[in-house]
């Protein structure tokens, strides 16, 4: 496993970030999500809190990006902004080439339908629907004709073929999260966001869920951004961004869980 790892430890300070992404790293593949100088401030005046202080990044097609950082580092806020759930105080976000920062609620909803899949920490399934009904819900909300074969494939992929008709209350936590992953994959989103996908699961189940996630990225080339506390989760990513105080302070490529633990310590003490 270690052999394919490639250390690229560099500190990405706010001021140099644009130069980094624009100039030095010529992307082989197109960036499907990009953020430019994004800041997010909560409150006004003396009580104002800068959750995100100015972040620019690109997520490339087929890439799994993990975002780590201590509580309050701004990682969740960043993900919410990238996903169009929250609006930045300044800066710009674009998904699949179009800017989403200025869109109204209706247009944003359409963007979410077409381009975005979500996986939540608490699964967020509808209790009265079966596993399969939950999975196709976003497709039905969009009112699109959908590809049955693809849905069946996804359900097989996450290992739920024999659990289609079960309701969430009849499924274990891991199975529920598999439903959630299938729900996110079903619409073949441009990008999938996972918010602490293992945060509510035991370690064995977590490992299984991470396998499912990794396989879907590898097999389907599903671009994914994952926010996590868990180094084991982040270790399946192609790269990991470390946030502290609203800034990206470190970026690792292909790091192992061990590397990540070391990095967490560094960032934490920095």
């Amino acid at each position, binding site marked *: 496993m270690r052999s394919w790892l490639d250390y690229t430890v560099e500190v990405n300070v706010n001021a140099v970030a644009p130069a980094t992404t624009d100039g030095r790293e010529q992307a082989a593949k197109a960036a499907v999500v990009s953020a430019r100088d994004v800041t997010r401030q909560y409150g006004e005046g003396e009580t104002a809190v800068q959750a995100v202080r100015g972040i620019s990044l690109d997520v490339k097609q087929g890439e799994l990006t993990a975002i780590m950082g201590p509580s309050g580092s701004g990682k969740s806020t960043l993900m*919410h902004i990238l996903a169009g759930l929250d609006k930045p105080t300044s800066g710009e976000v674009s998904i699949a080439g179009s800017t989403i920062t200025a869109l109204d609620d209706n247009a944003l909803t359409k963007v979410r339908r077409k381009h975005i899949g*979500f996986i939540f920490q608490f699964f967020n399934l509808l209790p009265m*629907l079966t596993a399969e009904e939950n999975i196709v*819900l*976003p497709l039905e*909300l969009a009112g699109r004709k959908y590809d049955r074969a693809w849905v069946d494939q996804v359900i097989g992929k996450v290992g739920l073929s024999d659990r289609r008709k079960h309701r969430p209350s009849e499924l274990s936590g891991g199975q529920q999260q598999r439903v959630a992953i299938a729900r996110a994959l079903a619409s073949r989103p441009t990008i999938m966001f996972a918010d602490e996908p293992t945060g509510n699961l035991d370690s064995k189940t977590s490992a299984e869920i991470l396998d499912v996630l990794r396989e879907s990225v590898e097999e389907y080339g599903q671009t994914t951004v994952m926010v996590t506390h868990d180094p084991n989760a982040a270790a399946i990513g192609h790269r990991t961004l470390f946030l502290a105080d609203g800034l990206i302070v470190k970026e690792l490529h292909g790091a192992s869980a061990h590397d990540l633990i070391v990095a967490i310590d560094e960032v934490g003490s920095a």
Partner: protein
Amino acid sequence: MIGVSLKGLAGRKLRALLTALAIILGVAMVSGTYVLTDTIDKAFSQIFQETYANTDAVVNGRGADIEFQGESTATPPIPEEILEQVQSVSSVEAAAGTVFDQRDAKILTKEGKAVNTNGAPSFGFGLDTSEEASRFNPLKLLDGTWADEAGEVVIDSGTADREGYAIGDKVQISTLEPAEEFEIVGLAQYGNTDSLGNATFAAFTISEAQRLLHRDGQLDAVSVAARDGVTPTALVKDLRSELPGDVVNVRTGLEQADEDAESAEFTTFIRYFLLAFAGIALFVGAFVIFNTLSITVAQRTREFATLRTLGASRRQVLGSVILEALVIGLLSAIIGLFAGLGLAIGLNELFKALNLELPSTDTVFATRTIVVSLLIGTVVTVLAGLFPAIRATRVPPIAAVREGAELPKSRLAPLAPYFAIVTIAIAVALLGLAMFKDDLATAPRLLSIAGGVLLLFLGVALISSRVVRPIARVVGWPATQIGGVAGRLAKENSMRNPARTAATAAALMIGVALVTFVGVLANGMKESNRGAIEDQVQADYVVTAQDGFSPFVAGAGDALEEAGVGETVTPVRSELGKIDDEAQYVTGIDPDSIAETYAFEWQDGSNAVLAELGRDGAIVAKGFADDNDLRVGSPLELLAPNGSTALLEVKAVYEPPPFFPLLGAVSVGRELFDSLYERPRNQYVFVNVEGSASAAATKELETAVADFPDAKVQTREGWIKQQDEDFNTFLTMLYVLLALSVIVSLFGMVNTLVLSVFERTRELGMLRAVGMTRRQIRRMVRHESVITALIGTALGLPLGIFLAALVTQALGQFDLRFEVPYSLLVVFAVIAIVVGIVAAIAPARRAARLNVLEALQYE
């Protein structure tokens, strides 16, 4: 603990307000009813007290005083000479005679129609307006002068206002004489009473009144004032000794006022009638309170658990929820109490709009109103909150640390269906008892009907949580078809918490069931009425009074006969009489022509018998004959109100339709009738014309009765339709009053939806995140609301039909028909859908406006 409870309540103001509204309406109805009926009562007693304020004794005619089905015969007049005899009694200081008639002085509108009093009196007075007699005058002159000579009249200011008459105007007034023109010389009111309701009066000079009201040489009453030092009782004693006891009655003024006031007892009826609707609204309100508190208790499970871990005892938890109910109840009761003042005005306007104006005076806000309103509002709320409060005590402290803590199931929950079945069984037993047990007094009968219906609703509500899912599957189907995925989710949501949906729907069910009950029963009544008329009346035309039911002057019938317009003109007289000491309606028929316009269903006899009626023959209705063991040849004694009697023999027995027999229990020949009743009146005049009814014939008939504006010419079909319309007016009032309980259940639906939206916050956030638009969210909430409303309808419609069928059965002896008006039921279902849509407006908006991020992070 009290502080925690109150602060919690303050923190949920909107919810508390919505909950309160459910009770406010019911209490407002209670207080409004009391205010309105107390005010009417006061107006009535004012009328009577003022009438006799300066009268120590009253002398009037001694009659048979026959009372039947709320009607009573007028006291017969006394000879004029009585006045002189009274004046010559030594203890009398002053005395004045009055002519007084309750129904025959009809003031005409400018269009020449009689003012429709809708059954209220149209008084005619002949008043002594001299200085010394003014103390006896019940009227208060507002403007102008009293009538001083023939051709002058004083009318009540209310009628003058409504019809646009002023002093100096000419007005047509019809009496027992054809309409004549009078000059209005003054406007008056009855004592200090602002409004007499629909009643009208016209005051003439005594001699003019005697002529118009056919009281030549007669007076209706002599009012007497005693000399100083003579008590009214002593005065009455003196008068009794001097006057012929077989001709007159002598009473003190107070006794007379009490006697008269008894005829105003119908305010008691109105009071209980309206209170019944208040009770229904409160009952529905109790459902809403129960449901709301149940949901909030469930949602606050963790809060209660936390309180328990901090040392709160079960008793304290119980107390905190009950206190919450108590505060909501008391606040709602206070608001409702004052809202009732406004509602009283609204109710009065409702009556007015339906042409049932009631007398009014200054608003009466009695202590009893305040006490009853506050008590009932608070008690109902606390009772409804009791069960949720007990459930709150069952939350274990450990729930404080559990993820997704849920309220433990009630220990009684598994027993609920059995409990429901027992409740329904008791309800049906009570209803059966009330409806089919013959020898039951009215009060226990009404109580067991009310109790039975309430228990029935309760039982159905208890069991309804079991039927919510199947019903939702059916009534939710259209939503899944037209609402897309939002509609499907709505259907699923409505089935998620069957107990909650059931309780919400049950509140609406009550209103729907009652409306359906009324609608179905009314439809049966209309059909029965039409059938009864069509079976009996063969005439082309039916001439009645303007209101369609009061007896009217015989002169109109005479005019029709004289005009020779119709092929057959046959008047039907009607008055009260006593037959073998039993009060009954007696009809006078024209033996020669009645059979051409009225179809007798002979039991024993034939049309040929009619010719043999003569002056001692009688035709008897079967029901009356059976009850009194009468058969052809039996003797009968008929007593008229003026005391004259006739000995009769039964000549034939016929069977009229029990629902609406047009003729009285006993019918006699017109000649005999007219000799027994001093001022005979017609209830109907049946007319056959050559060919059939036509516009030309109608015109001719109308011209013939032009001088009798109280007479109304209608074709048979027109008459039936007119009765349907009058009945519809009453129906409308019932619907409006029942709408109140539907509005209460609407608040309940809003409440449940708001609470469900609140509870599903995170879920809504997820839905928005995965691509649900605001419009889809609103649609989802709206469809859930409509499905709930349809569940209530699906329960309420059959329940209402069942109750109507039961009552139809119970009224079997009246041959009441049972016909379900399907199109009306469709209208009710559509209204229920509208209620669902309206209830969803605010909750749907709330759900759609949720901030996605905050909703997702919501616990």
